[in-house]
Structure formats: structure tokens, C-alpha cells
């Protein structure tokens, strides 16, 4: 009896402490780790959210860029940070989607080491071809690829990048083969698709939208389940004939595992509120991103589903592990 009373007191004490933790949180500056270089989409999103958090809570939010190794270095750093809610991570579909299936050895566990706060935004991928390709839509492209197996070159911003994986997923779903030409980053791919050095690429939409609008490359489909408001004339993959194809780039806010639940919930609610603000909305639209906002449980489930999905693509496409 006495024991259970003590136990109850203990629970109460913990509850009081954590409740307190969320009430006084944040009592000092918050640091958002970005595993990519400044001025990239991840960095811009982190700064946009950070600025609004500062306005709401009066504490500075510092963006800490720790780029390298396809996002793994910064993610590992955040995984090992003190779980007190003062270190967060703005992650992407690489460390929390593709990488767990791609790397033999990672310094973090994408699921166990993190607690989801909220999915922040999604960015569609777009399938573009050089203007000289004799195809007008995805159906013609598939027919062309079937007639010329392995003869068409596609570019990607890197081996094992989401662009590479999205194309592998397309090839396995459509039953076609192409020749992979990897680049270092999006700029080289974009320039070479425009110049016709390579024929096709599957990349994050924002960099391509101006080129599509200017008629420098031809867009065949977007990878999302709905059309993108930024370019509503481009059909989805499902509409274009590849049923069930969805591959989006996404960005989300995480805390290290064991961060007090109240703090995670408080951050999640605040992030969702921020993402509904009209000025944040327009800033994200400029990036070609769609604001989302989700509960911690939804985001955790999303990450798990992504890891399973990409692991299967990597295995089916026989992509070499790193």
C-alpha cells in the first residue's frame, strides 16, 4: 500500500515536473539543426519557422547548419543532443526516408532516436524531358523507352539521392530501363537537360518551374497525388498513366527521442499554427513547397512508411549500398 502511494506520488512528481517543463518552455534560445548548407530549402524552412517561434515565444531561435554526408552528419549530431527541447532537427526525405535503407552503417536510428514534432512541408518532384525528345506525355515516354531499352540517359543530383530513387521507382513501376548519369547537385542536371546532353530527369520542382514556364524543358508529370498549385497544367503521374506512383520530397521538424511529451506537443501545436499563417503560406509557395502541419503521431507514422517504401525501391532496383 505504502509502496503504491509512493509510486503515485512519484508519478505525480514526474507529471508536475514535465508539466512545469512545458509551462516554462522555452526558457532559453532554441537551436534548430539543419543538416544542409545555408540558403537551401531546408535552411529556409527552418529559418521561416524559427522566426515565427521567436515572435510567439520571445526566445531567439538559432539555425545551426551542420551539412555533410547527405544529411547524415547533422542528423547524427541532433540524435545525440540533450533531449530537452532546446535542440531540434529540420529533416528531409534523405536522412529519414532513403538513407536508412541506403547506408550499411548510420550513426543514428531514424525511428528510435527521434520524436516527430510535425511534417512541415512537401515539395513535388517533376518529370522533365529535353525539348528534342519525341514524346509529349508519359504514355509516349514509356513506349519510347520500351522501344529503346537502356539507350536513354537520365540525370540525377547524386547517386542515392531522392531524384535518383524517384526515377528508379518510376522505372520499376513502368517496367522500363534507362542509363543513370549522376551529377553533384541539381544545377548540373538542370543545365544538361536543357542543353540536351541528357534526355530526362526527375527532380525537385521549384528549380525547374521557371524553365518549364519558359519552354526550355518539357514537363510530363508531377510525382504528387494532387496537381501542384504552382503549375496546375502538369498532370499527376497517376493521371498520366502510372497508377499509384507517389514520391514527394518532404521536410519535417523532429526532436531527439525522450524529449518531454508536453514540449513536443507544444512545439507541434505551435508549428501547425505557424504553417497556417498567410505570410508563411506565401513564403513557402515561393519555394514551391506546400505547408502541411501534422500531429507527432502522424509524423512518426509518415517517417516509418517512408523508410519502408524507399528500402523496397533500393532493393528492387538493386542500388548498391553505401
Amino acid at each position, binding site marked *: 500500500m505504502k509502496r503504491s502511494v509512493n509510486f503515485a506520488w512519484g508519478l505525480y512528481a514526474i507529471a508536475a515536473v514535465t508539466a512545469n517543463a512545458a509551462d516554462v518552455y522555452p526558457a532559453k534560445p532554441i537551436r534548430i539543426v539543419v543538416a544542409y*548548407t*545555408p*540558403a*537551401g*530549402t531546408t*535552411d*529556409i524552412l527552418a*529559418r521561416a519557422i524559427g522566426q515565427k517561434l521567436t515572435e510567439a515565444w520571445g526566445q531567439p531561435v538559432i539555425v*545551426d*547548419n*551542420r*551539412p*555533410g*554526408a*547527405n544529411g*547524415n*552528419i547533422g542528423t*547524427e549530431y541532433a540524435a545525440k543532443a540533450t533531449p530537452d527541447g532546446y535542440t531540434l532537427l529540420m529533416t528531409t526525405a534523405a536522412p529519414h526516408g532513403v538513407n536508412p535503407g541506403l547506408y550499411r*552503417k548510420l*550513426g543514428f536510428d531514424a525511428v528510435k532516436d527521434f520524436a516527430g514534432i510535425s511534417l512541415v512541408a512537401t515539395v513535388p518532384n517533376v518529370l522533365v524531358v529535353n525539348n528534342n525528345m519525341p514524346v509529349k506525355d508519359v504514355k509516349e515516354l514509356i513506349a519510347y523507352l520500351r522501344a529503346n531499352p537502356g539507350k536513354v*540517359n537520365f540525370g540525377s543530383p*547524386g*547517386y*542515392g539521392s531522392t531524384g535518383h530513387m524517384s526515377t528508379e521507382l518510376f522505372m520499376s513501376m513502368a517496367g522500363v530501363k534507362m*542509363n543513370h*548519369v*549522376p*551529377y*553533384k*547537385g541539381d*544545377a*548540373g542536371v*538542370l*543545365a*544538361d537537360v*536543357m*542543353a*540536351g*546532353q*541528357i534526355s530526362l530527369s526527375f527532380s525537385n520542382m*521549384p*528549380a525547374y*518551374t*521557371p*524553365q518549364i*514556364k*519558359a519552354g*526550355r524543358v518539357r514537363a510530363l508529370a508531377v510525382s504528387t497525388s494532387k496537381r501542384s498549385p504552382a503549375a496546375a497544367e502538369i498532370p499527376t503521374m497517376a493521371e498520366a498513366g502510372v497508377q499509384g506512383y507517389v514520391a514527394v520530397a518532404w521536410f519535417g521538424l523532429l526532436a531527439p527521442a525522450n524529449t518531454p511529451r508536453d514540449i513536443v506537443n507544444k512545439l507541434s501545436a505551435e508549428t501547425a499554427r505557424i504553417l497556417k499563417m498567410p505570410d508563411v503560406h*506565401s*513564403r513557402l509557395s*515561393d*519555394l*514551391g513547397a506546400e505547408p502541411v502541419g501534422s500531429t507527432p503521431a502522424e509524423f512518426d507514422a509518415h517517417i516509418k512508411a517512408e523508410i519502408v517504401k524507399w528500402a523496397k525501391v533500393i532493393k528492387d532496383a538493386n542500388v*548498391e549500398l*553505401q
Partner: protein
Amino acid sequence: MDLSAVFSNLILGFTVAMSAQNLMYCFIGCLLGTLIGVLPGIGPVATIAMLLPITFNLPPIPALIMLAGIYYGASYGGSTTAILVNLPGESSSVVTCIDGYQMGRQGRAGPALAIAALGSFFAGCVGTVLIALFGPPLAELAFEFGAAEYFSMMVLGLIAAVVLASGSLIKAIGMIVIGLLGGIVGTDVNSGIARYSFGVSELSDGIGFVSVAMGMFGFGEIISNLGQTSETKNVEVSKVTSLMPSWEDVKASIGPIMRGTALGTVFGILPGSHTVIASFSSYTLEKKLAKDPTRFGKGAIEGVAGPESANNASAQTCFIPLLTLGIPTGAVMALMVGAMTIQGIAPGPQVMTQKPDLFWGMIASMWIGNLMLVILNLPLIGMWVQFLKIPYRVLYPSILLFIAIGAYSINNSPFEVYMAALFGFFGYYASKWGCEAAPLILGFVLGPLMEENLRRAMLISRGDPSVFFTRPISLGMLLVSFALLLMVVLPQFQKKREILEVADD
């Protein structure tokens, strides 16, 4: 080419750029860029990345004008540290170190800095005019460049580096090869395999240029200096003879500035090329044209004037692919893309037509920025030179500290500092044994691009090596490389025969 349209566009541009607000931001940008860029160990990329957040809350046009100003200021600041303390802020100022630092040691830092500023200004003016007149058609030229052309261009650049060597030819080639090998460390673009990374995740992105340059030029040079002075117990400080270049200096520099500007302009517009090729080939050209090539490496003003002009000309013209096509041509331009995106401008062909005030305003502000840089920096030369009067024993611990902070701040990781220490150790012994750092740096910067483009060209051509010879631009560059190689190798053989058995270094 519709000249009257260009003219009215330029008037629009200057009205935008000359507004009091934009002039102020341009000035603040140049000033901040110079002040941060001049810190030893902080190169232009780091300067821009650090100062980028300041522009987030400005309207688009002032923000981009200020960033361009920061870029010019930082580039010039990088050249200043190269001349004063032998620290190149970016790969293209490595060449400036060779003769600029020697001029500084001879008490001629003032003329070196002044010629660098004037040469840069001239090159900047030419670059700006070219962008205004021919920007869009020049941009299309970039599409003629595929992997085969880039590979041939890298070959040309590396052969030019051999000419740089003032000592032994074999040792210089060896240092280039070591640079190429060092550049290979990291994730292989084609297979995703992390080569020579030994399970260290920091190494999977390769060794950073800053660690190599700061290690070999910064730490290595300081150790050598301390070692030498510990023997003589006396630090030679050459008296500063004059702050401004003499009439002879100016006359000697006019040709190099012209040629450097031309080279820099050409290389600047090619996406994927590298400003380092512009400045290295300008140095090579000047050394080849000089009546007395032995002066190079010992403080020849032509070796500062040419490369600095080339550097700045390509800094201007590399805006062309970004502004007209939306393609960034390097780390700095990639940051500019980020800045434009933050401002809600999608870089692409439509910027010119949909936002003419921004496009032409930026071009006008380029010219104004270059002018401000000269006005700002000529008086500052006196101040920079004063730093050289500080006793070395007081100065160098601070340089050490700035190098360490600069290396740390690249990725907020101590790893880069360890790498700089390692390269300091290597560089100290290499220079002891007559192996120079500059060719290594060039190999290091160009190596990954060379391998990447060679393998990409072979992938795209399905393994047909004839692409390098059937594409005219590629063939042309390979022929020039071959001619250069003959020019380098033949005199060496003759020299060997003439002075039998005498080591050539």
C-alpha cells in the same frame, strides 16, 4: 542586338541602383564584405554564407544589390589576405599569393593591393558592359558545353598549372597528382562509394578546399617563418617603400590587366568551369609572355595584375548564367540562388522579362559596386599595410586563431581544423623539399571535376572516347593543351642538354 533597347534598359537599371537606399545597401555590402573577407581564414563563400541572413528581411532589390556588394568586397578581401599574410581566401587567390605575398615581403604590399584593386575595377567594368550588351546570347554558349568539353578544359587548366612551377618540373607535376588524389577522397559521384574515407563520415564529402589552403599556406607558412627566424633571431621587415604603384608598375600592369580581363570573361560564363582556371591561366600567360620569366614567383607585379583582373572579370560574368538562365555556376552563385528564392524570385529565364528593374538594377549595381570597392579600398591600403608593422610574434597567434575559427565555421565542425593541421604538417615538409603548394591546390580543385566529367562523357557516349575529338570545342582545347605542353617540355630538354647533370632546381 538592339542598342537603343540596351541603352534604355541601362537607364532603368541606373535609376534603380542610384536610389539613395540602394546606393547605401551597395556600400554597406561592399564594406561588410571587405571587413569580414579580409579576416584571415574567412573566404568569400564563408563571408557570404555568414552575412546572408542579414539580407533576409530586406526587399528583394536592395537585398540582392547588397549581396552582390558583399561578394565583391569578400573577393577583394580574400586577395588582400593573400598579399598581406599569404592566405588565399578562395582557390583563385592562390595565384595572387605567389607574387603578391613576395611583393609584400619586399615592402611593396601597397602597390600590389592598389594594382589588384585597379585591375579588378577595370575587369569589373568590362564584365558589366559585356553582360549588358551580350548577356543572353553569351549564356546560350554554355549549352555548347557538355561533359567532354569540361574534361578538355580541365586538362588545359592542369597543363597551365605545370607552367606555374618556378622550381622542378617533376616535383610540380607530382604535386598536381597529389592534389588530384586528394580531390578524389570522398563520395564517388558515379557509384556512391565513399573512397578513402575510412569510415569517417566527414570525409565522405571530401576534403575541404579551406582546410588544404589554410593548412598549407597558413599553418605551413607560419611554421616555416618561425623556424627561419629562430635561426637568425631577427625578423626581416622590409620597409614599406610606397603605398601607390609607380608609373613603371602601372605600365607593366596594363597588358596583363587587359589579357586577364579577356581570359576571365571567357571562363566566367561557362557553368561548371572554375574561376581558378581563369586566374591560373592568366598567370601562365603572363609568365610565358614575360621577357624575364624568372622574376615570377619573386614579386612580379604582372603576376598580381593579370590573375586579379581575370578573377574579377569571371566574378562578374559568372552572373550571366545565373541571371539569364537560372543556372548557378559555383558555390557563391548557389548561395545567390538561395537568396533569390528567399526573396520569392525564382531564378530563370523569366527574371529578365518579368523583373527588368531587378535584372538591370543588379547589372548597374555591379558597376557601382566595383566603383565603390575602389573608392573604399584605395584609402584602406594604408591601413592594411600598417598591420605588417605589427611585430610578427604578436601578429601570428591571431592569424592562427582566425584560421582555426574560419575552418571550424565551414561546417561547424572541428574536423576541418584537424584537417588543416594535417595539411600544415604536410605543407611544411613539402616546401622544405622544394615541392610547391600552388600546383597541388589546382589539382585538388580541378581533379574531382576532371574525373567526374571524364566518366560522365564516357557514360553519355556509351564508352566511345572519340567524343573528345569529334566535338570541335573539346578538340580545340585539347590541341591548345598539347601545344602548351610542348612549350613547357621542349625548353626543359634543351636546358638539360645545355647544363649537363645540373639539377634543375
